[in-house]
Every structure is written in C-alpha cells, then in structure tokens.
C-alpha cells in the first residue's frame, strides 16, 4: 500500500512495477505498427512480425499469442 504524502506528484500511477526491457521494446513496436496505419488485428499481427520484437517463446506472432499477451499485460 503506497503512502500518501502532500504534494503528491507521481507520474506513474497505473503500474506496480517498471516494464522489463522486452516489454518496453514491445510497446514501442506496437506503437510503430499503429503509426504505420495498422488498425485491424490481422494487420497488427502482420506488422509485428516485421519488427525485431519476437514473442518471449520465440517464433512468429499469431493473433492468439498477441491477444493473450495483451490481456495479461493490459490487465
């Protein structure tokens, strides 16, 4: 439980831990894929496969892998 101390000015209030280096790269890659115009899930997954960020267990991104991971990381 965090303590409240005035004046409270904490830029990070939505997460309990720093993102790992891999999570940070993942977020940047997703943003870049969106920035290139991907909107639908299949476009996002195809875009992710063109980035250097791989799923943690290796291999290609699939819709299933991507949505499962997002559900976990976006909770």
């Amino acid at each position, binding site marked *: *439980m*965090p*303590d*409240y101390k*005035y*004046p*409270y*000015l*904490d*830029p*990070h*209030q*939505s*997460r309990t831990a720093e*993102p790992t280096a891999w*999570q*940070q790269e*993942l*977020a*940047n890659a*997703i*943003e*870049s894929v*969106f*920035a290139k*115009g991907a*909107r*639908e*899930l299949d476009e*996002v997954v195809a875009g992710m496969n063109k980035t250097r960020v791989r799923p943690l267990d290796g291999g290609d991104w699939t819709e299933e892998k*991507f*949505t499962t991971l*997002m*559900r976990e*990381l*976006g*909770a």
Partner: protein
Amino acid sequence: MSVAAFEARKPTSATPPAGPTDQQVQQYLRTGLRNRWWPVIPSRFVETGGKPLGIMRLAEPLVLWRDSKGTIHVQADRCPHRAVPLSRGINEGDRLRCNYHGVEVGPDGKVLSVPGQPGCPLEGKKAVKTYPSREINGAIFVWFGDALHEEAGSFEPPPEITAPDYSSFLCYADWEMPWRYAFDNLMDPMHGTFLHANSHTMYQGDTQAHFATRDTEHGFFFEKTGQRDVNFDWSELVDNGALYVRLEIPYPPSGGPGGNFGITGFGTPIDEDRMCVFFWRTRKVSGWQRDTWRFLYKTNLEKRHWHVLEQDREMLDGLKPGLEKFEMLYQHDAGVIRLRRYLAQQARKQLADLQAAGKM
C-alpha cells in the same frame, strides 16, 4: 411626523432581504461549493485496518480509515475530547482510538469509551461529525453538505468512469492553486493549441477559432465551431450531484484504434490556495483494443499524459485567489466567464438559503 404616519408611508410590499454580497459569494466559493459530492483521495491510500489518514478538503480536516471489513469511513479529524487530530490515533478495526487519552470513537461518530473516566457523560454521545462517503472507480467521494443539507444528495457517476464499455485510469495530483483555476483551465480549450502545442496529442488544429456555448440538462458545452476531433476542441461542464468536466482529445495514429481518449476531470479544493485533481483518462474500447491500450498506457502513454498535465500545473502553480481583477478576457474566454457566473449563482443561492434559515 408621527411614527404611525411614517410607518404608513413605507411601501406596503415587504422589501426582500439584502442577500449575500458579491464579496461574500466569492469568499464562500474559495473553499468549494457545498451540497455536492467531491472526490477526496484515491482509494489505494487507505488500507483495510491500517493507519488512519488525515487530510484537508474544502478547508475541513478529515480523517479517513477503513474498518476491518474494508468499509471506508470519513470523519472530522478532531478528537471530541481536546480536539487533537484523530488521524494521529489508532485504527482498532471497528473504531478509532485517540492516542492522547484513549477516547474511542465509532464509525457513526459516537464516543464508545472514555477509558480515563468510565461513565463520563461524553460516552454514548455522537460527538464527531461523520461524512457520507462512497467509492467510485478507485477514488473516495465525500458529501460536503451545508447546515441545511447534511443528508447526502444523489450522484450518478459519469458512465465514462463506471460503464463496462469504457476503460479508464485515474491520475491524481496535488496542485498549489485555487481549485477554480483548474476548472477555468478545463473550460478553456484554446490553451491546448498553445501551451500543449508540442505534446503528443495536441499538435494539430487551428490557432484561431470561434467558440459557442450550448446548454445541456446538467451544465453546458463550450466548443469550437466547425472543428471536431482535431485537437482539444470542446469541454463540458457537468453539475449533477458533483461538479466535473468532460473533454476529449484525439490520439495520434500511434495510439491505435478505439477513438478519442477522454478526460473526466474533478478538482477538489484543499483550502483557499491548494487543490487536488482527479483526472480519469478514459477510452471507449473493448477486447484486444482495450488490452493493448491499457498496456501502452502503462508503458508509454501515462508519462506523456503526465507531461501534458504538468504543463498546466506549472502555468498555474503558486497563483493565489483574486487574479480576476487583473484580467482582460476575450471571446475565447466565454467558457470561463460562463463557468464563473454559474458557480457564483450556485453559491449565492446556497448562501441566501442559509441566511433565510438563520444558519449563518
């Protein structure tokens, strides 16, 4: 002339009482409008069975504590014995115990025990003011009623922060400025184009615009005419059991699908010079889009949103009440003018009712 003759010459219709002066109205508003729900602190700062938290809101000292079941209690932060802060006491799970002489106070404000003098008339007395409170999406809301409205009024929270088709994050911050400056700021969309010109979301849009106000059932819109979904183009003041502002800002393409990001903003006075803000960042998203936005928010977007909010804070930081007398407003400020007039009307009505009831 005799007294009787003089009396007879007085107008027959009773002259209305003078009513509150402008000065009284402005002074009253400095610590917030009463008879509203106000958010006071994020829920996460008050632990079940944990230390009581002492804070000041609307210039009233409050103690917040959660009993052993997790239920939140909000009371005046004054021991009924010698008026020291109860927040320096101990949470006993179902009551607070003052640390000075051990007086125990229950969640309804009743003194349960005076250990130093059992049987003392203070026992059983409802001696500590207890505020109606509720929790909404991660924040504790408190009813601040005046002497005529101690019972809480209704408040239907905005759907953006409660409905399941929205996702949201609460951002809380303490700001050193009168609370009304934050509301002025929210009803002033034009500052986005300048103050936030090089932020991630507000890099587009005309620097000149025409604004119009439009009434709603519980407030009003202030919006740019002929421009929507480009920049920070509109704000809506809502006064419906609580005072808040709603606005939307488009994301750049990198923000992904799901439409605009919204802010549902509340600002609660601490005292005349300080306030705290509750900005729920909201988005109407579901499924993988929701999850992805949440992940991006936590990893990348939150710090960018924070940076924008800091630009607002730094512009207004440390200002004191009374800037109005040095202002020269122009058309872009119509939302601000409208807001101020509205708040003054509400305050005047509360003061007049209190006066009429002999409560002030």
